[in-house]
Every structure is written in structure tokens, then in C-alpha cells.
């Protein structure tokens, strides 16, 4: 099947639209979640949302909406538990996760549905998404992106330093709950794309990849959204083209593609961080006297001499076999 034929199929067009919107929305809210060092929060909400899907199957209403509702309640509950700051807060969260998953499986059984009915929500089924679901996905994802970008100064400040934000007059609790609700909405949105069990990957992995190379928050947010978009559209296309030969599920393909991006950038980030650490300026005081002269030094330090140059006060020290050589006239001082 040619690319054109594949892309002209209505179910493929719907899947592509869903992939574009979820690919942009999930990393946008994921950036704030990673900033607050809550990378696993998306997983927790995903587990709780399983109960929401099962309630939808049981009552015959749209699982998307019941998942949104239960995920929002779960996210607010997680936020409240976290805010109380109990030392066993993570245990309380774990209880909520398992409760959500077990409840979901149990209710699915009560609804007379097979586990396969639930499976399309656990692992995604982007190619079976209905036109109505695509519309809901697009609207919800657009809301998430607009809020994440529009309120970015406030959300950044709250995630960066809660106490400072409170004294600055921001209602920290409202913003925290807003982030939790946004996360819950993106979980429900990405449910059809990558599935509830993998949804957190789409929120966290692009951010982790982006921050290997970035130094500012704005570029991290932008790069994470682009990487999320690339992974979800790319993963969908890869699985679509490969499916003529084997049964390749889009959800896991999207997540593995995102992870591949991380694996490629991680060594670069490692090298950058090491280089950064080596060239971090020395902030000890510059010695006044010049008695400590490096003897018999024949090597001429300079740009591209192969030795790391580190700023030290008003000059540069060259790292040479564990010594710090500071140029002084025709010789080098030991600093």
C-alpha cells in the first residue's frame, strides 16, 4: 500500500489527528510534572482512570468521559495527599494506584465485558477511534496546551518554588490542582493513543529527552512538545507501514520511538554535563603572590591546546595533569 493510499483511509486520518493533538498536549503538562519531580504522577492517574473506563463500560456511557471524571477526582486526591506532606505519602499514592487498577478490572467483569474490552484502553487502540472521540480528543488537548502555555509564568513559578510563589501572592493550591486536573485530562486524552498503562511515557519521556540538551525552561517545554509530536505521529506511521507484514501495535511503537530519542540524546547530554562541570569557574580567591611557579613548563597553553580552560577571577586556569596553570608573563603560576 502506498503512503498516499494509507493516508487517505478515514480511520488513518482520524488516528493521525488524535496523534498530533495528544503528542503536543501530553509533554506540555508533563514538563510541569517533571519540574515538580512527580514523574510518576501520570502513572498513578492512569491507573485510577482504569476504574473510570470500567464504569463507562458498566453504565454504557462513553468511557472517555467517565475516565476524565474519575481521573480528575483521582488527581485531586493525589494532590491533596501530597500537599498534606505525610512521610508515608508515597504509600498512600500506591494504595490509590492499586485500588484504581483492581477496581477497574473488577468492574469490567461485573459489566460482563471481557478483559479484551478493557485492553484497548490499557494499551491504546488509536486506529479504532471514532469521529466523535477524535473531536473530544482535539478539544481537550487544545485546552490543555492553551492553559499550559498561557499560564506558563504562573505554573513555572509554582512548580519551581511553592513557598516563594505563595509569598508572591499566588494561590498555590489552585495552581497545583490545576496541574493535577490538566494531567488527568491528558491521561484521558492519550488513553486512546498509547493506552492508560503507557500514558505517562508520553508525558515524561519527551521532557527527559529535551532536557538532555536544553538550558532554559522555555526551550525544554517547546522541544518536549515537538518530540512528543514526532514520537506519536512517527510511531503511528511506523506501525501502520509495518502492519502489512506483522501485527505492530501503535501504542507501544510510539513509546519505544520516544525512548529511542532519549537513548540517542542521553550520551550527548552526559558529555555536555561533564564538560559543563569541568569548565565551571573556580570561585576560590586568586592568590596575590606569584611564588608558586610551575617549574620547567615547556608546553604553551592557549586556545585548542587540548587542556580544559576554566575561568578563575580575571584570568583562565588551564587544567594540566591535575594542576591549575595560570599564565603569568612568560611562565605559569600554580593556582
Amino acid at each position: 500500500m502506498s503512503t498516499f493510499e494509507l493516508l487517505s483511509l478515514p480511520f488513518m486520518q482520524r488516528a493521525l489527528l488524535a496523534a498530533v493533538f495528544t503528542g503536543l498536549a501530553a509533554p506540555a503538562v508533563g514538563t510541569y510534572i517533571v519540574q515538580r519531580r512527580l514523574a510518576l504522577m501520570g502513572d498513578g492517574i492512569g491507573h485510577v482512570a482504569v476504574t473510570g473506563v470500567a464504569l463507562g463500560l458498566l453504565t454504557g456511557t462513553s468511557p472517555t468521559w467517565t475516565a476524565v471524571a474519575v481521573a480528575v477526582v483521582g488527581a485531586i486526591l493525589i494532590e491533596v495527599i501530597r500537599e498534606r506532606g505525610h512521610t508515608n505519602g508515597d504509600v498512600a499514592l500506591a494504595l490509590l494506584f492499586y485500588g484504581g487498577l483492581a477496581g477497574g478490572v473488577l468492574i469490567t467483569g461485573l459489566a460482563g465485558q471481557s478483559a479484551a474490552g478493557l485492553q484497548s484502553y490499557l494499551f491504546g487502540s488509536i486506529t479504532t477511534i471514532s469521529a466523535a472521540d477524535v473531536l473530544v480528543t482535539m478539544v481537550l488537548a487544545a485546552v490543555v496546551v492553551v492553559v499550559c502555555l498561557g499560564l506558563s509564568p504562573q505554573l513555572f513559578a509554582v512548580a519551581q518554588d511553592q513557598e516563594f510563589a505563595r509569598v508572591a501572592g499566588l494561590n498555590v493550591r489552585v495552581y497545583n490542582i490545576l496541574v493535577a486536573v490538566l494531567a488527568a485530562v491528558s491521561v484521558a486524552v492519550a488513553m486512546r493513543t498509547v493506552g492508560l498503562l503507557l500514558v505517562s511515557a508520553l508525558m515524561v519521556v519527551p521532557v527527559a529527552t529535551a532536557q538532555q540538551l536544553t538550558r532554559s525552561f522555555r526551550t525544554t517545554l517547546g522541544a518536549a512538545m515537538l518530540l512528543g509530536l514526532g514520537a506519536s505521529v512517527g510511531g503511528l506511521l511506523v506501525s501502520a507501514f509495518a502492519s502489512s507484514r506483522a501485527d505492530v501495535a501503535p501504542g507501544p511503537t510510539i513509546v519505544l520511538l520516544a525512548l529511542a530519542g532519549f537513548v540517542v540524546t542521553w550520551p550527548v547530554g552526559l558529555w555536555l554535563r561533564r564538560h559543563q562541570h569541568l569548565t565551571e569557574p573556580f570561585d576560590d580567591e586568586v592568590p596575590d603572590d606569584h611564588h608558586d611557579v610551575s617549574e620547567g613548563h615547556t608546553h604553551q597553553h592557549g586556545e585548542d591546546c587540548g587542556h580544559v580552560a576554566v575561568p578563575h577571577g580575571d584570568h583562565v586556569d588551564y587544567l594540566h595533569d591535575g594542576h591549575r596553570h595560570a599564565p603569568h608573563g612568560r611562565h605559569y603560576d600554580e593556582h
Partner: protein
Amino acid sequence: MPVAPVHLEDGAVAIGGRPVLRHVDLRVEPGEFVALMGANGSGKSTLVRALVGLRPLTSGRLRLFDTDLERFHAWARVGYVPQRGGAASGVPASVWEVVASGRLTRRRLLRPLGAADRAAIRDALEVVGLADRAGDGVSQLSGGQQQRVLIARALAGEPELFFLDEPTAGVDLASQEALARALSVLKSRGATIVLVAHELGPLADLVDRSVVMRHGRVAYDGAPLGDHASPGLLPDGGHVHHVDHLHRTRHDVVPPVFGPLDHRHQEGR
């Protein structure tokens, strides 16, 4: 009488039901530089957290700029530098971005940064001597430089009243001196400064008044004291650095609550 930026009358704070601060009176005059000193667990950080509204008072009355705290909304007039390990978080952020977040007190929702905002951010970076590092990631800076970023963030909102919670803790001497320069610029601009410190170091020359906390009460309030207060000035005869280890409980922050035996021991000294 001019309006006092900070006026606390008979303030008390309890953490988890345990009384931490009792009967604290503190009035700070405009333009004053007050050093809040005391041992670990003496309640000095709790006091400053209560003064910015992070810790509720269990009793007493707190007024900022002559407005009761519950009705105080002019947070743009207050700058706060919390006690933190550093300025970094889970995602990279540039020095400029962290400092710009201090401008939020004066920005309205969904409005982009204006020229005045950018000028204030640039000025704040210059005062702490980090203008040339604006584009760098905060995690690339040394601990002392990160502390200066947090001060610049508070400065960016152009407040009149500053609270700094242990800005000198664990900071190298060069950064302590840069910090002292930044605070002296603030002081010369007429800002009121309340600084929590374990040791003053290079900041000692700037201080107008020392308040020494001890076991959750004000033990001394008056002329500046050096790091090693002269004996006789303090009720317990001097050195204020260390907690009385005999009465130390497992809790780091909560000062010990005296039993009757402890009390007699105190009086018997």
C-alpha cells in the same frame, strides 16, 4: 509615627500542636536592617515564615504596612528569599527565567512582559552581579551563585520589604561578599530588610539591629551583636550559636519544651 513595615504583637506559632514561638513582639521600622539570630531550633526561621504568612499565628496580631495579614494583598511590596538548597528544579531553567518569575507579583494574568518588567529583571541581575550569566542554566551555577539568583528573583518584584531566610548558610566567602554588596545596594535604596542568619560574616557591617531568638522567644533585641556576642549582653551569658545539647530533643526545628526539672535547671544557673 511612620508606618511600620512589620508589626507583630504577642505572636505565637505552634507546629503540629507543639508551641514553637511564644509571646514574640517585633516591630521593624522603615529602612531598618534587622538580623534575626539564634541557634538552630531557636525559632528564627519559623518567625520569618510566620511574618510572610507561610505559618499561621495561633495567637497574636501581625500587621504588614499597617494592614492585618488576613487583609494584606499588596504582596508586590514584599520580597521573600526562602531557605533552599538551591535554585534548581526537575527541569532546566535559565537564570533569567528564575529571576523573571519574581516579577509575577506585578504582572497580571496572560499579559506578556513589558519594558518595565525587563528593566527590573536586568537591574536585579546586575545588583547581584550575575548579569553575564542570565542565559545559563541555574544548575550550572555554584551554590552561592544560586543563592544570589534567589535574591535577584525577590529583587525583580521591586519590593520595599525583604525577608531573607539564611542566605549565607553554606555559601562560599566570595558569594557571601557579593551578597553583602547586593544587600548594601538594597539598603541604600531605602529597603527594609529582615535577615535570618546563623552567622553574619561580611554582612555584619550592614546590620542596624540584632534580634536574638532563644527557645522560641526573643532573648535580645537591640544594638547589633557580632557573631560572638560579648558575655553579659544575653540573659544566658553569651554564646548564641549552639543549642543547649542537654535539652536537645530529636526534633531539629522544634525547640525543646521544658519540663519542671528543666525549668529549675534553667533558673539555677
